[in-house]
């Protein structure tokens, strides 16, 4: 039991908050990646992975908050669907782009960046 201002937080509330904040963090990074990355293929990296994990975390946070009942079973099914559908959609977009002949962005060969990149 943790007291925060006037509210008392039980252990499962804290767990739910941690999960949902983690989900929001990954949504944030995937959005930033979508804006910052240079081309379609590398943007897919940001959205295809980040959204999947973020949705999983937020749904598990909701399940923890809700307890085990019929609603959380339905939430589990949503998570399962996202888990299958999200990489499939990413693959579909990427394959369409690849077959249309879109060239991936390459880092320009600079003197400072030739050879193996560090770490």
């Amino acid at each position, binding site marked *: 039991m943790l007291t925060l201002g006037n509210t008392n937080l039980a252990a499962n509330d804290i767990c739910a908050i941690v999960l949902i904040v983690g989900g929001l*963090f*990954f949504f944030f*990074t*995937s959005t*930033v*990646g979508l804006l*910052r*990355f*240079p*081309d379609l*293929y*590398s943007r*897919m*990296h*940001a959205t*295809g*992975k*980040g959204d*999947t*994990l973020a949705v*999983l975390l937020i749904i598990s946070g909701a399940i923890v908050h809700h307890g085990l009942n*019929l609603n959380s*079973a*339905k939430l589990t099914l949503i998570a399962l669907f996202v888990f*299958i559908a999200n*990489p*499939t959609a*990413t*693959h579909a977009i*990427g*394959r369409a*782009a*690849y*077959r249309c002949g879109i060239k*991936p*962005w*390459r*880092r320009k060969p600079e003197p400072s*960046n030739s050879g*193996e*990149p560090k*770490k």
Partner: protein
Amino acid sequence: MLLKKLPFTRYLATFFYAMAFWLFLSGHYDVFHITIGILCCIGVSYASTNLLFQYEADKKRHIIALEFILYTFWLIKEIVIANLQVARLVLSPRLKIDPGIIVYKCRHIQGDVPKTVYGNSITLTPGTVTLDIVGDDFYVHALTPAFAAGLQDGEMERRVAHVYHTK
């Protein structure tokens, strides 16, 4: 294409899966809703049985299901690592990415379902996205050469092969 001849028991199995799912989701157990459910499930099982039971496995299905669940836990761990790495790349002031497309030839995996699972797993794990699958060749876009090297290591392929194949 829809009317590939299948044993009637498969349609029946699909119907019962769909019906169980309907009852689980609806929450209304009166004659009207259950009748609608039965009609919908007949349509669904007619149209999609050949999608559900397409894959002929050489192992028992329940063993595959069990090992697949174990594989999923491993995959979730990998996904968390992947996201932390991508997050670090995204948030670093200079984007230290050097993307490229590599061709990965899979050696242990046969069949549509294992290839789909493997392709989706590649998409979900560190810095790699499956672009196309032609035969045994996976065309994979990698964010950095290090991620590409991690794929060439082939650990994930062995795990997927372990789930679906006896060898």
